[in-house]
């Protein structure tokens, strides 16, 4: 269980050999519990892990990244970590097929976590599908600070929701939406957001889930003049800031839009920083954007 850490003793992520403690089903998803020495203590809500898949040697080179669902620093094995896995591809399938006691190679905690409000203001937390994973830990931190926490979980259908039982216990209120109406309100999370904000005076919206949903949350927050913090889900190759794969257009404090890494500069961004309409493109006013189709910087 050796860990590697160079540079400043308290700086950034560590690479550790973890050990699988449990894999259990939750709706359409799996919850993977593993021991990872040194990770739990250093984790804040919104941090993520990057896990190597396929064993050695493998044809799957890239780590899979998951937001951290829960940590327990009191575990007998020196701290445990839980993630939620949607086993839709060969890498994630390999991961949920691990047996108890199997080793996994883990890098964590990665990324910038959610920031917490200074004052005990009411907060609304919105999770789309298994994007809700980091919100329960966040809800705990917020309630410790005296914040009211209203939780919204949305998904296409009931089996794609994550954390309904947990949510009822840990939030002041839980609202559920499904696209097909199989549980809760039929519709999207944004359909119930205005009423919740009106009823409880929410000052911060926290969100994690698909880009479209996050764009919707950011818009509601902007219209109301309140803060939103969104954890984005961009495809990553390395998770540690060296590959430049997971970029999206983000407005910096200097007002300039840059293609910004979601792994090291995110995954949590303030909603008004992200150019939501331009995600998947390079806006023409982005730093270093192509001058024209035929010439200029992008030749």
């Amino acid at each position, binding site marked *: 269980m050796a860990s590697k850490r*160079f540079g400043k003793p308290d700086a950034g992520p560590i*690479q550790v050999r973890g050990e699988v403690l449990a894999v259990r089903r939750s709706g359409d998803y799996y919850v993977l519990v593993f021991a990872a020495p040194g990770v739990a203590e250093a984790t804040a809500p919104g941090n993520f892990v990057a896990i190597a898949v396929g064993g050695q040697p493998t044809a799957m080179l890239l780590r899979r990244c998951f937001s951290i669902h829960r940590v327990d620093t009191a575990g007998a094995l020196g701290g445990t970590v839980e993630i939620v896995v949607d086993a839709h591809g060969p890498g994630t399938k390999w991961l949920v097929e691990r047996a108890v006691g199997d080793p996994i190679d883990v890098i964590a905690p990665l990324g910038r976590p959610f920031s917490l409000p200074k004052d005990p203001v009411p907060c609304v937390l919105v999770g789309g599908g298994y994007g809700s994973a980091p919100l329960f830990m966040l809800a705990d931190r917020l309630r410790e600070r005296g914040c009211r926490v209203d939780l919204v979980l949305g998904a296409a259908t009931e089996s794609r929701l994550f954390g309904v039982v947990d949510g009822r216990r840990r939030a002041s209120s839980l609202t559920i939406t499904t696209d097909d109406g199989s549980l809760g309100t039929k519709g999207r999370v944004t359909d119930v957001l205005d009423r919740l904000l009106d009823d409880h005076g929410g000052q911060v919206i926290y969100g994690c889930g698909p880009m479209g949903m996050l764009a919707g949350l950011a818009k509601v927050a902007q219209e109301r003049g309140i803060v939103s913090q969104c954890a984005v889900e961009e*495809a990553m190759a390395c998770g540690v800031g060296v590959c*430049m794969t997971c970029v999206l257009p983000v407005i910096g404090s200097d007002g300039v839009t840059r*293609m910004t890494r979601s792994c090291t500069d995110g995954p949590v961004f303030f909603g008004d920083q992200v150019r939501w309409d331009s995600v998947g493109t390079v806006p023409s006013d982005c730093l*270093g954007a192509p001058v024209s189709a035929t010439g200029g910087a992008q030749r």
Partner: protein
Amino acid sequence: MSNVVDMRANLASVTLPSPVLTASGCAAAGRELDKFFDVTAIGAVVTKSIMVQPRSGRPTPRMAETPAGMLNSIGLQGPGIEEFISKDLRWLRERGARTVVSIAGGSVNEFAELANRLRHEEGIAALEVNISCPNVESRGQVFACDPRAASSVIHAVRRHTGAQTPIFAKLSPDVTDIADIAQACVSAGADGLSMINTTLGMVINTDTMRPALAGITGGLSGPAIRPMAVRCVWQVRKALPDVPILGMGGIANGLDALQFILAGANAVSVGTATFNDPSAPWRIHNELAAALADRGFRSLADAVGHAHREEGVNL
């Protein structure tokens, strides 16, 4: 055992304490990886190719995983040479890392401008001239696909670079005869050759039934291209017995690195493997040292090109 092997690597006028370097585009400018291993211990940090102006790179998706490899179309995103010098190069210098600066330009003049701008900067062990990035919109501007174009870039960079700084031309495998291009670069003043850059590939997403990458095509890297890379090193070493070669392409462990050394590389770069294991360069240094010791080599230099020996000749 492994500590008895002299691991020093000679790349033209530069001697490095380790033959393992990072690969351009897979290590940013070293700072992120320094959290996982001591970047001053490896041969050198090879920085992501820098251009004159800031550059946004391509839209996303920029990456697709492939069998034992990956496709990328980053599009040379970077802060431009001035910010690179004031932030990245400065950090590397203060950290004490040996640095190979990779430069990329859209024209011969841009390469010359970059060389000129870097000429009086301290802490640069060598320049790697990226004439082979496949992620440019005009494939006609992949200089490394044409001996004359490659030659003019290298000539210009050589003219604007001090004699004490070796320049390495980074070659593309997407050519009919890589030894021809290698020869053209050396004749134009390259002190050494880096090979190989990624090879052009493509993936179709069968759900959307469109290209998986926003850039449509991308550069294929990882163990999938290793045999191609070893072949290129072999061919160029045979054609140019004395030219320093920095070998790369899918090196994931010490034995992979050893293949390149035996084929004729004087040192190696570790690229895509770093995405899987951020401490891969240092791990591979140690694995290579052990592999050399196991085979009775006293020094890395003795193993360079050893696969080319005549029948019956052994250690």
